[in-house]
């Protein structure tokens, strides 16, 4: 019924999320974009569960749980980062350089 529009919206949201992660420099914005991608996936799960059963909806709960946990840890890291470096701009942070 709403399958096609739902999937289109989901795809658009996901793409926005990816592009956001790729292009933005602010850690918090990237974080939000990641959440956006997770929720785009959630939307796909919900839309498809109407035809394929409740498994998708169960998965959505898992995703939301993980996303909540991730938000807690991720925000903590960003705050710690800010305290150390006075910035959340990822261009200025290259500790992983080999």
């Amino acid at each position: 019924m709403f399958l096609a529009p739902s999937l289109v919206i989901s795809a658009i949201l996901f793409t926005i999320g990816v592009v956001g992660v790729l292009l933005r420099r602010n850690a918090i914005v990237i974080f939000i974009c990641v959440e956006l991608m997770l929720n785009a996936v959630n939307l796909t799960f919900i839309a498809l569960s109407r035809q394929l059963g409740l498994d998708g909806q169960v998965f959505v709960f898992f995703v939301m749980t993980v996303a909540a946990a991730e938000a807690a840890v991720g925000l903590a890291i960003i705050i710690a980062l800010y305290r150390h470096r006075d910035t959340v701009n990822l261009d200025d942070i290259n500790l992983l350089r080999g």
Partner: protein
Amino acid sequence: MNPLQGTLADKVGLLILLPFLGFLVNGTLAFVRPRAKGVITAVGVGSVAIAFALAAGIFGKMLGSPDAPPLVKTLWPWISADLLRIDVALQLDHLSIIMALVITGVGSLIHVFSAAYMGEDPGYARYFAYLNLFVAFMLVLVLGASFPVLFVGWEGVGLCSYLLIGFWFTDAQNAAAGLKAFLVNRIGDAGFLVAMFLIFKHLGTLDFIAVSRLAPTAFHSGDAAVTAIALLLFLGCAGKSAQIPLYIWLPDAMAGPTPVSALIHAATMVTAGVFLVARTNVLFALAPMAQSVVAVVGAGTALFAATIGLKQWDIKKVLAYSTVSQLGYMFIGVGASAYAAGIFHLVTHAFFKALLFLGSGSVIHAMHGAYHHTHNHADAQDMRNMGGLKQYLPTTFATMWIATLAISGIPPLSGFFSKDEILASAFARGPGGTVWYVVWAMGSIAALLTAFYMTRLMLYTFHGPNRTGDAETAHLHESPGMMTTPLIVLAVLTVIGGAINLPEFMPSAGWLHRWLEPVVEAGSRIAGTPELPRGTTFGLLALAVAIAIAGIWLAWSRLKPAALVPAAQSPEEVGFARVLYEKYNIDELYDAAIVRPLLWISRNLLWKTVDAGIIDGGGVNGTAFLARTVGWLGTRLQTGRVGTYVVLFVIGVLAILGALTR
């Protein structure tokens, strides 16, 4: 069943074990108690003397059953790989017992002599350890029942030779002489190895008895394969026995102690090549071409080395070239299929050349002692510094004259019979090819030169006025009894040694000939043994005596020891004499033609191009460079920025998705 089984002959392994134990004991003492001279002498001399007694006992048993087949005693299996089966086995037969007797007999005398000669040397224990090890390896060489076992002894004696030439290794020149001997021998050994491979390829076995049995049916006379085998074996012999073109190491080997020169570089090791040809007589008999090569090389060496001996001043150098020359005679003998004659000369040569070397050792001992007393650094081995020694060293003088007459070929001393038999056997082959007459003529001229240079040595050393120096003369004295006794024993052997193989017209003639018959019979049958008419035999005998007397007379009448001046004041030689004195510059020729090009190729091509350039540069450093470059490229991806990783991550995801949905 072999009549020798169950008798003393079964203990043949003990022959080798005794001197080897002597080596172990003295080798240990050299480290823990190098000053225990009594024990060292007892072990060093005793082990070889007991081995001689044992060899004599075994010989007695063999005399009792002269027709006994070879006793092969397998000690333990050594190599077992598919078709190749080699046991550590000893072969006791008529040839090996004669060799064992010479090695242990002459060896014992030289050990006794060494005990006095080396008495003051700090390396006394080391010396006897090496000498015992040498005797053990030499016995492995002559008693081995197969080529590989013989080869172990062959290399072992080479090692001992190297160790003893460079015995006083603190002098770089001595160490270099040892190295030279070792390296020149490697060339011959390479030939020996390839010959062994070929024998195994064609006959499938390396045991002497099996090879002698199979070869006549597997090869036709003159086959390329058997000729190659014989020639390669002879290359090995030429290295070990110092024949042209590989003789150059032996004169340098005189850097070692004089008893070593007597034992290794005159009496035993250098005759191993002659022994090998006699041992493999069937192979050589099947290759007439190789036989001619053996005889011609032998004759060439006999003559060539004798000419060099004419003009040497170092007493040991004269004897060294004399040895090279006499080894040439032995090769004429075995090349002419007169194996018994070759072995006969080997035995008599072992007596009189050991005597000459030990005599020269006695002279050097006296000279060295005199110079040592007066702190003079003159050369104790230069004959120009000697002269008139007969009044100071009467025993040495008398015994060395006996040996000189023997090597010159004066009847009835041993050298006369053996040398004459060799030349006669070469002459007898004459109808088969003119080359044999040439060989005989060269041998005869060499005999004349031999008589000349040996008389020269005696004249300059013992006759005329003394040139050692006024202060030194008072310190010249005869060597102790421990040194003169071996000289006397060897002199007796030199006199009577010829009796083992008298010419055929004498009573009990040709004993050694008949004794060796079972060993060399197969080869003699293939090659044929031409007989000389009795008149010719007598003619050759008379000619040989005339040549010997002529040589001695020439030297006696032409050389004036009174006119000689000490080495330091001697004028330079000129003309051909200088060429002879400088040994035809063969060493320099080899240096320019072989050693330097080889070094150049090794240094510039093999080292700098192949090793440093291709292997180190391309292989080792090249792979390292490749790994570093790829690694460097990899590190460029690691920017440390999350953005880069995300981009790569997304590209990766897209690539996987693309691959899955395609």
